[in-house]
């Protein structure tokens, strides 16, 4: 084991930090606060182009696919620094979809999809959940039927985040109606401008936009199917493991706790500091300790990836721990300043620009998103400790 960045890794971190110092501008932050990531041709898009120019969307892909051939630890370092700086994060196209194409895609899949992903031009919306297939994902009903050399897709997807700015759907469909439910699923890449796709926005409590997307006789070439037909379940469970791993970089949590510690030192109107309260100090110390541990969990998962395994149990451990920690951070952040903790960003008197009020509304998502914590606890017990399935 080695707990310190080596010289090369430290130089990489410094390179990423220097890039962020130059490119995460006030204008970019303001645009993200107001528009999330959704403003076309704005600061976020300009930032993404710069990331793409550096080849960082493909930083841990093999060189033969246009990547930089760096390690999962490198990607973890970059993602952590991006989150700490509040930069637009690497999206799932890069962190979970592309690795699956590299691992399972046909030669044509790779040639067609990887170069534009690396340039930041191809961005997917991940089409997994359906109104009646959420946690029980394998019950999905959106279907694709072969008509000559064309797949014809009918059905609908929900929680289809980023569809409004995606170029493609990474779509999970049923391609064999007779097979057992896990064995009749395939993944098809569907250009978002194909006729027959309708996107309806859904606005969540945090203000984050997601979508319901409807597919009516949507026709795509047979070659858009990823890898082999009816092997999709294997691909998407692998992608979900990577997605959890990418989601649980705790750069944002480290930043939130650092900000809380700084707030605790700032004198209140009566001249005392929040940190004068020993109970608050104890709570902050716990959050600090827990963020440190969550960061170690993330680095361990990245190290395991580099040693050639998809660390299913470890990323599940990390995801459960860090998502529940996020809620505790948001909760303490809103409690530290009395009733002012209820003030939102645009209110007079808002504390820390309302970011903990915002985090309080954003945090529930990661407890149930990307696999509910209840299912992930089952995964930990069953795949980590050999307990039998079937208790749900």
């Amino acid at each position, binding site marked *: 084991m080695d707990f310190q960045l080596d010289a090369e890794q430290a130089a990489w971190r410094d390179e990423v930090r220097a890039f962020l110092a130059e490119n995460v501008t006030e204008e970019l932050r303001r645009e993200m606060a107001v528009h999330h990531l959704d403003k076309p041709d704005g600061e976020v898009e300009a930032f993404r182009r710069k990331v793409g120019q550096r080849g960082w969307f493909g930083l841990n892909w093999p060189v033969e696919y246009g990547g930089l051939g760096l390690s999962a630890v490198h990607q973890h370092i970059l993602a952590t620094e991006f989150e700490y700086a509040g930069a637009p994060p690497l999206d799932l196209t890069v962190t979970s979809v592309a690795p699956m194409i590299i691992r399972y895609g046909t030669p044509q899949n790779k040639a067609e999809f990887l170069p534009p992903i690396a340039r930041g031009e191809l961005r997917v919306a991940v089409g997994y959940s359906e109104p009646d297939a959420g946690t029980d994902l394998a019950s999905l009903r959106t279907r694709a039927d072969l008509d000559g050399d064309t797949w014809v897709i009918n059905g609908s997807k929900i929680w289809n985040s980023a569809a409004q700015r995606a170029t493609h759907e990474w779509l999970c469909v049923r391609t064999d109606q007779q097979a057992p439910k896990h064995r009749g699923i395939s993944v098809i890449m569907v250009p978002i401008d194909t006729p027959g796709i309708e996107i309806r926005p859904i606005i969540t409590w945090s203000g984050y936009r997601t979508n319901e997307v409807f597919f009516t006789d949507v026709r795509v070439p047979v070659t858009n199917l990823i890898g082999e037909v009816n092997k999709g379940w294997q691909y998407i469970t692998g992608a979900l493991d990577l997605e959890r791993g990418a989601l649980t970089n705790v750069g944002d949590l480290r930043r939130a706790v650092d900000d809380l510690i700084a707030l605790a030192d700032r004198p209140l109107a009566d001249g005392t500091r929040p940190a004068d309260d020993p109970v608050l100090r104890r709570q902050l110390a716990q959050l600090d300790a827990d963020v440190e*541990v969550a960061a170690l969990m993330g680095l*361990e998962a990245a190290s395991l990836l580099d040693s050639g395994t998809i660390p299913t149990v470890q990323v599940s451990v990390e995801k459960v721990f860090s998502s529940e920690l996020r809620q505790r951070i948001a909760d303490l952040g809103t409690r530290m300043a009395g009733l002012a903790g209820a003030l939102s960003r645009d209110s007079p008197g808002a504390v820390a620009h309302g970011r903990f009020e915002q985090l309080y509304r954003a945090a529930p998502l990661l407890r149930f998103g990307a696999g509910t914590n209840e299912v992930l*606890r089952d995964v*930990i*017990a*069953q795949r980590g400790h050999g307990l039998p399935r079937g208790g749900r």
Partner: protein
Amino acid sequence: MRLVLTAEQRELRAVFAELFARQCPTSLVRDLKRPESDGFPPQLWTALAAAGALGLPFGQEYGGQGAGLFELGLFFTEAGAALCPTVVYTTLLYGLAVDRLGTPRHRDAYLPALCAGELVASVAAWNPSDAGDLRPRLRATRDGDGWRIGGTLDFVANAERADVVLVTATEETPTGPGRVLGFVVRPGGPGWSAERLRTIAGDKQSRVRLVDCRVDDDAVLAGPDGRGLDPADLGWVAEAAVALQCAEMVGGTAAVLDRTVEYVRTRHQFDRPIGSFQAVQHHVANMRIALDGARLAAYSALWWLGRGERATRRVAVAKMHCSEAYKWATLTCHQLQGGMGYVRETDLHLWSERAKVTELQGGTADVAARWLEREIGLVG
């Protein structure tokens, strides 16, 4: 940065796991727990000495293995899983303290015997309930060519069986308190009286009262250039003690989790293994999450301490996580094993008792949080 054990490190763990499986059954743990036992396991001790475990972190010139503190932590993990008698820990800790705080002459005097298994030892050099508190409880006065020390130590582990105990005392001078010095005291000599305490785990702790206890100059650790022990060095030893104990707790947590997983996999009710119920699986998952956090925090602390400098922040994080992970794992395992885990003959309580002692020893999570509060600037 690579948070995966190397092949050599995995091999080291496997060797010690196998040794403890053979030499440290729970029947031994139970025997040593009895009030009439002195807590010393002759056969295990011989085996550990033969395997080089007692010399693991010490230089080859003393008969040691020259391994790092991190590797010693892997040993403590396997020891913790097997509920190794604490005399092994206190003896190794004494060696680490002499290695760090002593002169070459002190190392020559103690380390070869220790590596060979011929020295049983202990350390009482910080507040037993707060390892961040290094203030001596004893006073020392010059007496001819030696010293007289006096005062009371509330907890000295393995005091009765130890050949030597390292204590610290504040020098008394005509102008008030002087240097902080280390003294190697021989239990049972003139001026030494010890009263056995009875702990929840039956480990051997004594309250020691020293009255004009005489120590010769050659058994005094006076620090660099004789100016007294450097707080940075003594603090490193105290932090290493906490971090190693954290590694022990990681092993203990893993052991009770494994035992309980085995139980819930085989115990049937309502015609199915109780381990198939989601409520049971979630208890298991929560223990695993806490164990992973504790393990990473403990190994991080050990790794940074192994570079030779204090690592207060990481040690605090480790103690906060390990104390709670081990204790709650034992209590959750009692819940999952029900009556079968509650009876003495199934041994679970042996870990539960050790978990409580290790939670308190060196400082609870609350005490460790105070170390962290200082490190992150919440306390001036």
